[in-house]
């Protein structure tokens, strides 16, 4: 890379900046004010994935980011293009995913003028971005882009938006890409305080009932190896949250499954009975803690997190350690001695044996239970990347898939965005063409972005959409069944669409399974086809996600909703 300056337009400079940041793929949709940028993209050495709705661009970039750890990049035009990104930006912000989002903007001279396709997107996205910029002089553009990638990918990661008025993209500048970023208001802490780490180590040694509670921070800091080593060394069981799934191997003896509302009973029991809870890159979300006052009330709490604002936000912490999970776990490994947890692990083994996750096959013989499909996908393709939509199928995927590596479970955790999974799976597959990528979907969620079948076909991205077709907005229906006397208000969507024909209409492969013995062959056929595929799995329609902690209850008050055999 040359340090010499060169004359070019803002649009050209944008492309140069993308090269220097190592961006190989962007997800986007063109529009009026983006014409100068799209003209540069026409022969740029960057893959542009043309989506069919801007929401898919931002989810696609997020899927790409989560599958690789790199910063995802997307672009949309001013006004409606930009506002269509809002849900995806909020999603990335809630789950702390590194993204740089470019939006076109009306020319500076028209700003604030209610011009055609004008929306104040920096104002709109202020609460859902880590930071955002409105560039008013193309000379600032390289510096802004450099800062944006830096901010997005460091500290607690998150989305950064750059708004580009059209005149800025045509303005001529002397291009120079800065080597360094110096933001005096932004200095994230990576190295945890050693005194605190030693204190934590001595608490671990004293503990009899330790539990490690690991979240998405373990994935973002690439700390799953260290997590495993620490758990094995100190002999502490591990529960991983929805976004932490894949951070610890499911088949490991020390694994407890997911905690919280639809977690395993034994993960919840273990947390409640623990005397030391070691939280790593997790934020004590309400879906995990249930009734806060009753959460892990006998435990001392060690909280390792890169964001100081998460410390003691929801739960009072005894030993906070602010910094990067990987760095801190490495140090903790050095200082920590095994806990006296032998009896504890025996107790947990009993809980596991007495309270396993379970489901029973349907009475009518060959009907399909949704959990069964997840098990079959897991058996057919253990190292697949599983992306999900939001709802019951998402919980079943988290409960029943046998994850073994990080970055193989991609799901909308914090925001719970229906319609997220399919575009995110396209992004993940583009990032990891070597992997089989499934979008585990509900028939409701899939319909929120099914138009992206066109993108998958045109871009030749062979993802497999496994539609768990129960004819309901299942999770809401489940709550209506339990708490509203089975009054299924606006949750029945039966027979509204033929998913096989839908797939075929877009030129994708459509398959259907209505009986249990058709499940595995459909999965195998989809994998073998190498084409974008939709499998319509017609499943038991009133199956519930079990077990469940009712809203407002303590997490040990967890109920079986599945009948016993």
């Amino acid at each position, binding site marked *: 890379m040359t340090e010499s300056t060169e004359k070019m337009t803002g649009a050209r400079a944008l492309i140069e900046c993308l090269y220097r940041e190592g961006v190989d793929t962007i997800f986007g949709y063109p529009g009026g004010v983006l014409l100068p940028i799209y003209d540069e993209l026409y022969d740029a050495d960057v893959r542009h994935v043309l989506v069919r709705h801007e929401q898919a661009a931002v989810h696609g970039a997020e899927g790409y980011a989560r599958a690789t750890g790199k910063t995802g990049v997307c672009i949309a035009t001013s006004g409606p293009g930009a506002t269509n990104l809002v849900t995806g930006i909020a999603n990335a912000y809630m789950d702390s995913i590194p993204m740089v989002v470019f939006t076109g903007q009306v020319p500076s001279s028209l700003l604030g003028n209610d011009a055609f396709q004008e929306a104040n997107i*920096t*104002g709109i996205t*202020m*609460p859902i971005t*880590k*930071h955002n910029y*409105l560039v008013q002089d193309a000379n600032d553009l390289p510096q802004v882009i450099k800062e944006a990638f830096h*901010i997005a990918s460091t500290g607690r990661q998150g989305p950064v938006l750059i708004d580009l008025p059209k005149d800025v993209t045509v303005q001529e500048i002397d291009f120079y890409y800065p080597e360094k970023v110096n*933001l*005096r*208001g*932004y200095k994230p802490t990576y190295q945890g305080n050693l005194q605190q780490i030693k204190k934590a180590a001595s608490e671990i040694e004293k503990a009899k009932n330790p539990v490690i509670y690991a979240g998405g921070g373990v994935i973002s800091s690439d700390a799953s190896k260290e997590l495993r080593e620490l758990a094995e060394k100190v002999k502490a069981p591990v529960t991983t949250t929805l976004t932490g799934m894949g951070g610890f191997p499911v088949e490991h003896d020390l694994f407890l499954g997911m905690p919280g509302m639809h977690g395993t009973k034994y993960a919840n029991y273990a947390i409640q009975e623990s005397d030391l809870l070691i939280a790593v890159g997790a934020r004590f979300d309400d879906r995990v803690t249930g009734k806060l006052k009753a959460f892990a009330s006998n435990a001392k709490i060690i909280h390792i997190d890169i*964001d*100081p*604002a998460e*410390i*003691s*936000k929801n739960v009072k912490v005894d030993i906070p350690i602010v910094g990067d999970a990987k760095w801190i776990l490495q140090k903790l490994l050095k200082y920590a001695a095994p806990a006296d947890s032998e009896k504890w692990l025996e107790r947990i083994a009993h809980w596991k044996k007495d309270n396993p996750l379970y489901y029973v096959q349907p009475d009518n013989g060959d009907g399909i239970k949704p959990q069964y499909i997840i098990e079959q996908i897991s058996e057919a393709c253990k190292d697949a990347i599983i992306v999900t939509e939001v709802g019951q199928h998402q919980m079943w995927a988290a409960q029943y898939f046998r994850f073994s590596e990080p970055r193989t479970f991609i799901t909308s955790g914090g925001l719970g965005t229906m319609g997220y999974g399919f575009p995110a799976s396209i992004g993940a597959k583009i990032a990891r063409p070597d992997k089989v990528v499934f979008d585990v979907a509900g028939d409701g969620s899939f319909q929120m972005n099914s138009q992206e079948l066109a993108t998958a076909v045109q871009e030749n991205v062979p993802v497999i959409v496994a539609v768990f077709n129960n004819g309901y907005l299942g999770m809401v229906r489940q709550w209506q069944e339990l708490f509203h006397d089975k009054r299924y208000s606006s949750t029945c969507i039966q027979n509204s669409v033929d998913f096989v024909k839908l797939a075929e209409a877009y030129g994708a492969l459509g398959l259907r399974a209505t009986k249990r013995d058709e499940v595995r062959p459909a999965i195998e056929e989809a994998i073998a086809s190498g084409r974008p595929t939709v499998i319509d799995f017609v499943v038991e329609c009133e199956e519930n996600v079990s077990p469940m902690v009712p809203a407002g209850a303590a997490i040990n008050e967890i109920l079986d909703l599945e009948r016993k055999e």
Partner: protein
Amino acid sequence: MRHTLAVLVENKYGVLSRVAGMFSRRGYNIDSLTVGVTDDPTISRMTIVVMGDDQVLEQVTKQLNKLIDVIRVTDLKSEESVERELALIKVNSDVTNRSEIMQIADIFRARIIDVASKSMVIEVTGDEGKITAIEQLLKPFGIKEMVRTGKVALRRGQKSS
């Protein structure tokens, strides 16, 4: 409990709205907020008075620090800092009570900065208590309008904030 925060921020557009937005979306109420540029023209200083217990203060401070444009946040404890506020008070007055009002102003080392036939404008500087006190004394005459700048504060002595 009330806290006074000194917040050094980048002197850029949009920063006030980022800070104010953080307060509003987290449900924290701002009692007063003043902004002005510092001796370094690239840095502005906000003095924010906020109500809340220690936990609220801790979250506010951390959330402010998360904003990229916020350079430093300091909790100014009243015993360690000097604080002032300026108020302009337009009070009803005519020949019959003008000198009485001027005497009150004198006691508070306030200044009369405008006199009209039916009213006067008084400028007073001081801590919050002093301004509230003069306001109480002027009330019987009838306060037509009043404006307060909100508190500004600096740490005493050597330490900077």
